[in-house]
């Protein structure tokens, strides 16, 4: 299984994986066989807390694309859901959109409104 496949498999259990370097402890996304912080190759997966802030966003037709800066550090390209008037730096929390094959797509909602 590739790192990308492992990442997607975890979404079946609604887990958002981040890679963590066992040497420099830095988190990264997307997963790959080396740490972009120190060049080391000892990495494992940990589940993200699911909190972050909107770095930026753009609405295309009926969906809103965003860069969400996770609390752990990495930035995710994702969708915002249920936010009528999003703003940069607004806190958001992880939610999941079911895909037809049982996997889930991580998306983000306002941190204030719960799920």
């Amino acid at each position, binding site marked *: 299984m590739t790192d990308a496949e492992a990442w997607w498999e975890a979404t079946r259990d609604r887990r958002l994986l981040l890679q963590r370097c066992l040497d420099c402890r830095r988190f990264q996304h997307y997963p790959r066989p080396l740490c972009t912080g120190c060049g080391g190759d000892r990495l494992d997966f940990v589940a993200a807390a699911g909190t972050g802030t909107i*770095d930026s966003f753009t609405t295309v037709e009926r969906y809103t694309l965003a860069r969400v800066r996770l609390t752990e550090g990495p930035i995710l390209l994702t969708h915002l859901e249920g936010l009528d008037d999003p703003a*940069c730096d607004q806190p958001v929390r992880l939610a999941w959109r079911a895909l037809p094959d049982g996997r889930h797509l991580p998306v983000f909602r306002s941190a204030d409104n719960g799920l």
Partner: protein
Amino acid sequence: MTAAVAVVGAAECDLGLTGRSVLELQSQAVTRALADAGIALSEVDGLATNGISRFSATQLADWLGIRPAWCDSTFAGGAVFEMYVARAAQAIAAGQCTTVLISYASNQRSARSRTLTGVVEEGTPEAAFEAPYRPLYPISYYAMVAQRYLHTYGLGRADLASVAVAARERARRNPAAWTYGKGPLTIDDVLAAPMISTPLGRHDCCLVTDGGGAVVLTSADRARDLPRPPVTVLGYGESLTHTGMATAPDLLRTGAVDSGRRAYARAGLTPAGIDVIQLYDSFTISVPLGLEALGFAAPGEGLRAAVPHNTGGGGLAYCHPGQLGVLLLVEAVRQLRGECGDRQVPGARTALVHGTGGIFSSHATVILGVDR
């Protein structure tokens, strides 16, 4: 610095909606640039191009009937022509070749080959982790940069719209421009145009046209015997930063900061020593952010920068054939030769050309100068 190299010829192919093939447009660019330089095709022993086929430089060599001793088909989006200038200057200075032709053409408007979603390449992280969210490529990235920019500096869409209005105004003095003769554009026109990816509407995005051009480089020694005033390559610098939309830690700090710094250092110049700028205006946001990154304005003040730039109308109002970089060089050369008529920057002796590719992915800066 090593032995000086100069741009001695520059030309556009037909622009706009041509009904021509890529290689037909390339032929126009090549023959016109060589005629401008006073150099025969048989003297060309170096070739840099892309966008024709997998074997772009070899393909063009075959088409032109030449057998070059040096080539470059690096692909790094629209910034690559500024990279080709650096590589060509090095190859000529090192003696690998004497006369380099850098050319490009696209028939994307005639061929209707451009899509809003761009190309997703199988096997890349972008295909696995970004494509499921359906970003428009490259527009949605520039839109997120623009959103962050407006948020950070307390600005609005109307502020960015002024970039499109100014580009149209400059194109009114360039008969080759796509929007020449179409009259002025107003802030209200820009704000009322269809939204593409908020906050960028249609007029915040560059044109989709056919077009292209070519430049010819040779040693400064040889350039003295040629008909046109030689335009010397004073400096160059590059920076590659990302392909993914989630990679850049700071949307507002682009690779232009580093490519510019490297080019200034090589040229022994500062922004104060630059008379005219040709900056890749893929979207309205690219202009203020680029002027700031290259040292012509403080952060957040790029919309108020007074330095002459994008004199022919740029990608927003003149021509955008998929990769604008070669045409930025053509306009810079013409400005330095004093050939620009109504839009000439009086007495321009130094020009900075800045290309970008992809989603602010690749950056390359070239500084050119002329003695007069």
